[in-house]
């Protein structure tokens, strides 16, 4: 069994924009920095696939700064050592176990899409919105396929434009938020030229694609396990659209497993941080979508602040210089979240026999029996959240359906992901210095 043990001053977990920026700034401030990412390539979801110039610039900068990059590393456990001054992360790489011990940790694990259950959402062809984009970036054949893009968020038109340029026949974009809110948000965009330009640049690519606001999918139709059509509703009007794919996501939710496992406080559904991006756990920083959904610019700024701040006094002066930019981006994020808040109509889409937990095939009726219930009750009575994904999909959807706080649905217990037995076994072969602090446990 291959086993690798690394040590550094600053460990960054998550190789999206926030994580890359954090690792750069820490390394440029004379810290030994390691950047761990679970994907085959750096860049996170937004920079997945084809290299763009901004991504290349940041990744080159990290390499030049001497950041040690470990790709394909799935962190399955993270713990503060007894001395409370170091953090140990355990990861599984294609080669085996890789552990990293660090003085300070920066968590930049990003966000995932929120899925909501509706009849037929387990059919082949129903994917996330960003999900279908990610699949296509990985070579999934989409040319000539009919696609409906639905759900909520600024991601939807971007995904529709992306799919169209890859040859998909995009039938419709169905945004659940009503026009009134979107117009208000649009006015706010005008105050942020960079974002407005980005939105405008999508229009030529979206010519011929109807964009419906206040509109959502109510049902799907399929044959032999695969999607053939969807029913959409806008106000009192419902109609059917034939399609091969439904790319459907309802905003984003943070990947809170690591911060919760380390005991970081969560507030309003996000990791709580101070002005230095430091969490309630000293020495543990959070940056990017973990602390709030605000897009690329905000992630880059937060990452830089965290990276500098984790480097000590000197770095903090450079971090402080970025505070004004961050404040500006928070205003944008607040407007965004207000504009795309999910409507109550979406709570009634799943019928009694609709599957809500795709790992365990638990159905809506089983959850309704224990309503309003709790995440714990759902697990005990329905096996919801007990499967391979550990509630990463059904947790956020049930949080919305039944009003549970999102952090209450986070399963933060190692192993955070399924790992091979030989990897787990290798964690038991402790190194000598660990025995000094922990003593003989068994």
């Amino acid at each position, binding site marked *: 069994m291959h086993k690798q043990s690394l040590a550094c001053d600053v460990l960054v977990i998550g190789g999206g924009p926030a994580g890359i920026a954090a690792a750069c700034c820490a390394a440029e401030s004379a810290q030994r920095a390691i950047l761990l990412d679970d994907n085959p390539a750096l860049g996170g*979801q937004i920079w997945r696939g084809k290299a763009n110039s901004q991504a290349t610039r940041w990744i080159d900068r990290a390499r030049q700064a001497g950041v040690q990059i470990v790709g394909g590393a799935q962190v399955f456990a993270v713990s503060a050592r007894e001395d409370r001054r170091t953090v140990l992360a355990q990861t599984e790489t294609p080669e085996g176990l890789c552990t990293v011990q660090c003085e300070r940790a920066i968590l930049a694990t990003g966000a*995932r899409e929120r899925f909501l259950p509706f009849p037929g959402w387990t059919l082949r062809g129903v994917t996330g919105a960003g999900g279908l984009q*990610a699949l296509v970036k990985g070579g999934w054949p989409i040319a000539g396929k009919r696609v409906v893009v639905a759900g909520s968020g600024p991601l939807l038109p971007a995904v529709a434009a992306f799919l169209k340029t890859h040859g998909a026949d995009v039938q419709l974009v169905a945004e659940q938020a009503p026009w009134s809110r979107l117009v208000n948000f649009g006015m706010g965009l005008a105050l942020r030229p960079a974002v407005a330009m980005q939105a405008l640049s999508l229009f030529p690519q979206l010519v011929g694609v109807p964009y419906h606001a206040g509109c959502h999918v109510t049902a799907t139709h399929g044959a032999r396990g695969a999607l053939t059509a969807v029913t959409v509703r806008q106000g009192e009007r419902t109609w059917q659209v034939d399609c091969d794919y439904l790319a459907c996501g309802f905003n984003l939710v943070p990947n809170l497993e690591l911060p919760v496992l380390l005991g970081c406080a969560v507030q309003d559904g996000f990791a709580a941080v101070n002005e230095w991006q430091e969490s309630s756990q000293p020495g543990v920083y959070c940056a990017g979508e973990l602390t709030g959904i605000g897009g690329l610019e905000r992630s880059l700024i937060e990452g830089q602040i965290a990276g500098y701040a984790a480097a000590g006094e000197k770095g903090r002066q450079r971090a402080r210089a970025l505070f004004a930019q961050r404040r500006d981006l928070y205003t944008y994020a607040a407007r965004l979240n207000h504009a795309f808040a999910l409507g109550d109509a979406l709570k009634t889409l799943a019928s009694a026999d609709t*599957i809500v937990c*795709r790992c365990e*095939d638990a159905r809506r009726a089983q959850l309704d029996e224990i309503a309003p219930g709790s995440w714990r009750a759902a697990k005990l009575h329905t096996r919801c959240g007990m499967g391979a994904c550990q509630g990463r999909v059904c947790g956020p959807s049930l949080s919305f359906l039944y009003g549970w706080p999102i952090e209450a649905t986070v399963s933060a217990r190692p192993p955070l992901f399924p790992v091979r037995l030989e990897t787990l076994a290798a964690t038991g072969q402790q190194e000598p210095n660990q025995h000094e602090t922990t003593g003989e446990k068994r």
Partner: protein
Amino acid sequence: MAELITLTVNGVAVRVLEGTTVAAAVAIAGQPFTRRSATGEPRAPLCGMGICFECRVRINGRADARSCQTLCRPGMEVRTDA
């Protein structure tokens, strides 16, 4: 230019561009599903980013690999469970 890679999906050879994920290769091979659910429903990828585990397949004999997070390699043997 990206190179072409040959691998097998359920014993049938398929050629894909370097950088293609195993999930995409399964679709290119014409296999609609990746796994069967706890109650026997056929399933296909959902999240595309390693979260949902719907895309898991057997790769080179190793079960439960997330095909959307795994890049194709020459000679890889992929088996779906549906």
